[in-house]
């Protein structure tokens, strides 16, 4: 079982993954695949459940652009850590679609990518290796400054002294 | 089956190494363990997998060699270059430690 890190600390995971062919439960926080969402959207909305969506690599967030406000959590899959599509998906979700819920990195998630993920707007991580869980806080700031603004608040080259992005 | 040895690169310095009979990894193909049957090769590759898991070597595979009383010579030219060193710098690699009159396959 991977460990969930949320906002920098180990957290209990309240979400359950709803298999594509399982019945919609009465209660709980359910995480559905894009396929399931596209098939049972109305039923899921009517259920009143707290909803989460998992997007695989290759499943562009634009496909659910109008529904973003319905999800409390979106999980983006890294099938291999070298598949970097989810970094762009994350930024689009945060910056283009104003997603404010939990944005979770799942799959091949290693400490050497935490900093990039955090800067792209991920705030939750499912981490397989114990050593990576322990290293999390240090990994976020292993390079403590940056040359381009992103979704975090580290010191950026060329931006004003308060580190806020230029207006 | 052609005679084979198992080769890899040493993790620490990247140098070309061969699995020797005593289980150690050597830069000198001359003392590499020669396998004459598939079962022996598989055993050597398993040994290599252990060595990779303990951070000694990386990227092991088997190669064909021809063997005579004084030398072990890879069949593929690329492997000959790996065994001896670059043809452009004959003072680099294992060739610098061996008989300087040893010629390359293509004679350059």
């Amino acid at each position, binding site marked *: 079982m991977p460990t969930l890190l949320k906002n920098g600390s180990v957290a209990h995971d309240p979400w359950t993954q709803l298999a594509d062919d399982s019945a919609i439960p009465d209660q709980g926080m359910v995480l559905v695949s894009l396929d399931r969402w596209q098939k049972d959207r109305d039923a899921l909305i009517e259920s009143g459940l707290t909803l989460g969506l998992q997007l695989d690599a290759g499943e562009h967030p634009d496909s659910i652009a109008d529904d973003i406000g319905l999800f409390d959590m979106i999980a983006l899959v890294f099938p291999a850590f070298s598949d970097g599509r989810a970094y762009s998906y994350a930024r689009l979700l945060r910056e283009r679609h104003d997603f404010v819920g939990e944005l979770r990195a799942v799959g091949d998630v290693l400490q050497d990518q935490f900093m990039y993920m955090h800067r792209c707007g991920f705030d939750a991580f499912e981490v397989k290796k114990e*050593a990576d869980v322990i290293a999390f806080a240090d990994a976020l700031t292993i390079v403590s400054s940056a*040359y381009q603004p992103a979704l975090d608040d580290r010191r950026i080259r060329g931006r004003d002294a308060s580190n806020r992005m230029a207006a | 089956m052609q005679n084979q040895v198992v080769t890899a690169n040493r993790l620490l*310095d990247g140098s070309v190494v061969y699995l020797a009979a005593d289980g150690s990894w050597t830069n000198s193909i001359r003392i590499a363990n020669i396998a004459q049957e598939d079962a022996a090769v598989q055993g050597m590759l398993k040994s290599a997998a252990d060595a990779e898991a303990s951070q000694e070597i990386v990227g092991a595979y088997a190669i064909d060699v021809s063997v005579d009383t004084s030398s072990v010579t890879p069949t593929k030219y690329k492997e000959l270059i790996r065994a001896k060193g670059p043809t452009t710098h004959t003072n680099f690699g294992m060739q610098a430690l061996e008989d300087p009159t040893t010629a390359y396959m293509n004679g350059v």
Partner: protein
Amino acid sequence: MYRYDEFDRAFVKDRVNQLRDQVSRRLSGGLTEDEFKPLRLQNGVYLQLHAYMLRVAIPYGTLSSRQMHKLAHIARTYDKDYGHFTTRQNIQYNWPTLQDIPTILDELAEVDMHAIQTSGNCIRNVTADQYAGATADEIEDPRVWAEIVRQWSTLHPEFAFLPRKFKIAVTAAPNDRAAIRFHDIGLAIVKNDAGDVGFEVHVGGGLGRTPMVARKIRDFLPRHQLLSYLEATLRVYNMLGRRDNKYKARIKILVHETGVEEFTRLVEAEWSAVKEGTIDLPADEMERIAAYFAPPAFDALSNDPQELFAARVADPAFAAWEKANTFTHRATGYAIVNISLKPTGGIPGDATSAQMDAIADLAEKYSLDEIRVTHEQNLTLPHVRQADLPTVFNVLVSIGFADANIGLISDIICCPGLDYCSLANARSIPVSQRITERFADMKRQHDVGDLKLKISGCINACGHHHVGHIGILGVDRRGEEYYQITLGGSADENASIGKIIGPAFSSDSIVDAVEKVVDIYIGIRQDNESFLDTYRRVGLAPFKEKLYADAA
């Protein structure tokens, strides 16, 4: 040139510590090779045929004498006393150990150098015209933008795991010396009718297995919006570039398969949103960076000073060298000096630590402390007083880098090939050496004239053979080294991809074949046609027919 401040230094220092930690975890088993490999590649560390290889970044090919001395020191201390200057204006070392690499990076950091993103599926070194800032024929110094793009792309969190490597080049002169049309993104600085400076944007050029000339996707991009446009382009590529096949993963394939109109539409659509954001540089930051590239204060000198006249008369070798290896400088009384790293029988682009130190001293004394690396594996001293040319020449003679062969047949681009590279099918360097020896007679070389010959040891085309006037591709035919000849490639603003002339030649016969091709050209050329001119006039057929005419 750009000068680091404490921000830049702290950044590089952090990065070295990150790599040091990763090496340590690799050695203790905390990272497998599969997990470690992309991380080490993003710090320029390859595992090659005989050893690790470290590729050090030389941003847009510009370095100071202090930095060159450090590169020499590293060659001497941690390697086998030499380094190789590459086709992307970097330097690589062929024999470092993994253990030493963090220490080497510490040393590089002392002189504001690093190996960040010189490999891996990320944005690589941004290259530029090696004459930038010194030539009269540019609109403005392209290195300002190369530096701006370098900073933006460094540890960009969204683009660290692209489908494949990504290479950007910038030029600002009508004669493209940076081969922008064979880059993933090529930027040409242009002026619109109103006189504003902006970029012509070309996307999807490349060599390798599927050579393609880039497509122009925008005639004019206002210069202050460069970063947002690049961000949009990279984002489209990151999301849509193929990830199923390593050999179809470059942006050139995406442009080709999507179609340039649709691809452009996707980029422009993404850009319309991105440009409203905060990625474009504030004007004062643009100016801060541009200020580093303000032209130096050149002295008021005259052309053709007395020292020059005297030397030309006294030393015909100097006169020949000056003619072939120097280029017109923007400031009167100055010259751009090309240092040929292609001596007869030598290894193209290689320099010993002693040679590097001598060049560093030359730069400090005679070139306002600046050196450039060219994408053709040579070096350039950009700001030399004409009066100092004889002195510079004499030093180059003493270190063996005074061959008057810039742009001639012996000025060969050559990849490391099977002697060094684990991807290669055939050796390339020995072929280069033998060709230069065959054409050792300088009179003959000058008679042949401009001829760009490029050699690759495999289909990955790191020797740029596709864009050689004569290209040579090494192949493995039943375990033997064979060489295929292509003709008519060109990497400049008249971009073209070479055509295979016919069956490949054995290692024994390839040099004869090349000589025959040259003789055929001499036999049919008209007026002052260069090799490429003649080829473009007559096509492949006459060459093919005569080359294979008496094949046994």
